């Protein structure tokens, strides 16, 4: 058990008191769609703000915790400690969890947002971002080009990607397009010694593929310069300390030729003068990151001395904008006009070199091109929230239009909030920030709900006969519970998840892993029900 157990008990006690204080009726219901950090932190803020609230949390998977389980890297177990906190929230008597309940159009085994709105005072969409942003470049469909999101989901044992599979034994070079933390996670997993991953909760198939991997070099490319990179200093430092892995920093030059540029390349983004300009207190994070990059860059340029022995290399290459993917085994002539769709296996990525626009915000092509041979390319340019039937969606921004957590009627600036419909987390803000970002976010959304309740404008359960139909724990014909049963959906409650969890830990202990994840949904469902009737 984690050292925070005692504080969890205090919190549980505080909640127990709060709920026992809630004498008399007055219970009101909130349904949260999605059991990631945003779902749990929104629930937490609601529980603290209202003793008589009832919160039902739904997830399309039988298991909770969203990207903490299926995104956070297997070698970052400490980040996953936050699930202890979520477990404390889930055990509050006012909270129900129902996994294996997908919110969609209400057909088949799904339930629609409108059906939820008819049963709850408020519905919070906290369903994250499970789509991919595409580059829309020629050759993107070649074998070997894939999304970092799918790769991460695969090594995390996500049921959706169980069969995806990557044969990493065929080529020695991989390119990651994008320079956020997800890109660095992918680079680290691809280069770290598999033995160091063996005891984590990484999916067994992924570990086996990594053990057979032929990849020796991973080039992580960004369109802009080193001061614009989205990764955090913590992840960068970790990359620089991997056993047997060299980290090189390239400033806008040919990654394949391995040249490193000179001190006056690149308008001196990492020059001492540039760093000195970042002297304000508010610049501290940027300055510290730039200092680390400068140190790594000098080490890469300097190179000399006794060459340390490295098994693998990660290259951070800046000012490189991909313009197309080329198939393997095509001669230079055929390569020239790659307008149409190409089939076959990836052989190289074509890049255009860039420089920063004067305002530093965007990368502008310089008209110089280069071609980097590789067998794998991972797009790591962002996760995308998906549209839900019955909910407005701003397709241009790939986001639900919202203000302070209230879903708006349309993307129009003057649009009014839809009564009783809210959003939180990545579904509200788009895919950025860390677990911590969802705390303030959940608090904001909960505050909007509580304010609307106080003002009497929740107005959910509207469009119905006005009867309070009830959620997961209600007996009535119109309750969500009855609706799900009628459709043949068999929700997994929190106790069911805890049975899966126990099984995973026991199986993990038996095989020397932190835990051994169950991957197939059918297996999860079977385990969840083992103690049932």
């Amino acid at each position, binding site marked *: 058990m984690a*050292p925070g*157990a005692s504080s969890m*008990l205090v919190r549980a*006690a*505080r909640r127990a008191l709060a709920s026992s204080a809630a004498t008399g009726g007055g219970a009101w219901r909130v349904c949260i769609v999605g059991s990631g950090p945003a779902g749990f932190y929104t629930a937490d803020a609601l529980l603290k703000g209202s003793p008589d609230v009832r919160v039902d949390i739904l997830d399309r998977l039988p298991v909770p915790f969203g990207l903490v389980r299926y995104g956070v890297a297997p070698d970052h177990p400490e980040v996953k400690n*936050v699930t202890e906190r979520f477990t404390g929230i889930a055990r509050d008597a006012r909270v129900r969890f129902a996994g294996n309940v997908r919110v969609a159009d209400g057909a088949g085994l799904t339930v629609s947002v409108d059906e939820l709105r008819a049963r709850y005072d408020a519905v919070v969409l906290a369903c994250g971002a499970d789509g991919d942003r595409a580059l829309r470049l020629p050759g993107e469909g070649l074998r070997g080009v894939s999304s970092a999101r799918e790769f991460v989901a695969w090594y995390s044992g996500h049921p959706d990607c169980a069969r995806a599979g990557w044969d990493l034994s065929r080529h020695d070079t991989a390119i990651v397009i994008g320079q956020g933390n997800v890109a660095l996670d992918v680079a680290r997993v691809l280069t770290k010694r598999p033995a160091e991953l063996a005891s984590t909760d990484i999916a067994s198939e992924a570990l086996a593929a990594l053990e057979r991997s032929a990849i020796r070099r991973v080039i992580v490319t960004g369109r802009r310069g080193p001061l614009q990179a989205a990764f955090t200093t913590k992840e960068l*430092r970790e990359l620089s300390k991997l056993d047997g892995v060299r980290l090189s920093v390239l400033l806008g030059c040919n990654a394949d030729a391995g040249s490193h540029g000179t001190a006056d390349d690149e308008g001196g983004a990492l020059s001492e003068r540039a760093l000195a300009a970042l002297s304000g207190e508010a610049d*501290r994070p940027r300055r510290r990151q730039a200092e680390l990059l400068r140190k790594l860059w000098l080490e890469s340029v300097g190179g000399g001395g006794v060459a340390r022995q490295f098994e693998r290399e990660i290259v951070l290459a800046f000012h490189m904008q991909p313009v197309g993917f080329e198939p393997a085994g095509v001669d230079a002539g055929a390569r020239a006009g790659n307008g149409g769709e190409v089939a076959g296996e990836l052989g190289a990525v074509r890049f255009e070199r860039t420089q920063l626009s004067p305002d530093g915000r965007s990368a502008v092509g310089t008209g110089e091109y280069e071609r980097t041979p590789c067998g794998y390319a991972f797009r790591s340019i962002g996760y995308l929230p998906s549209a839900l039937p019955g909910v407005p969606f701003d397709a241009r921004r790939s986001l639900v239009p919202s203000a302070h957590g209230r879903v708006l009627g349309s993307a129009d600036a003057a649009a009014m909030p839809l009564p009783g419909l809210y959003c939180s987390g990545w579904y509200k803000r788009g895919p950025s920030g860390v677990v911590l970002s969802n705390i303030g976010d959940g608090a904001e959304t909960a505050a909007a709900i509580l304010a609307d309740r106080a003002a009497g404008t929740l107005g959910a359960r509207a469009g119905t006969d006005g009867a309070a139909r009830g959620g997961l724990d209600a007996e009535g014909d119109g309750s969500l519970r009855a609706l799900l049963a009628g459709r043949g959906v068999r929700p997994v409650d929190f106790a069911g998840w805890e049975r899966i969890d126990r099984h995973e830990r026991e199986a993990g202990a038996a095989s020397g892993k932190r835990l051994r994840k169950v991957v197939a949904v059918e297996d999860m469902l079977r385990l969840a029900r083992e103690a049932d009737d």
Partner: protein
Amino acid sequence: MSLVRALLTAGRSALAERGGVAAIRPFSRALAQPVRITFVDKDGSEVPVDAPVGKSLLEVAHENDIELEGACDGSLACSTCHLILDEVSFKKLKAPEDEELDMLDLAFDLRKTSRLGCQVKVSPELAGMRCQLPAGTNDMQQQ
């Protein structure tokens, strides 16, 4: 309130049984007097507490119902235990390691005297320290 107390005590002895911080604290320290420090909440209200020597500020905050998150349970992976210390106390402490600074860089309302509450242990020379909770946690400067 008694329920809280009971659970708190249960939690503490559970911690001791597991051979946690309390159990391995050296004899001399175990005898040290608790140290009076003050948490200053987001709204400016002050909560003076008696902090046992050797505990982290995060643990002390939790034991006194101060709303400090601590999402990663003190393993330097989240920065949700961010506290802003008074300058005098800050200077008494050994400078933070790179790893702590890396996490602080992600914290909202970062100041010169910011520290991670899970990394600072209570010691007698910190008597009188003031620990301010940061203004909020919703804005992220990082992409």
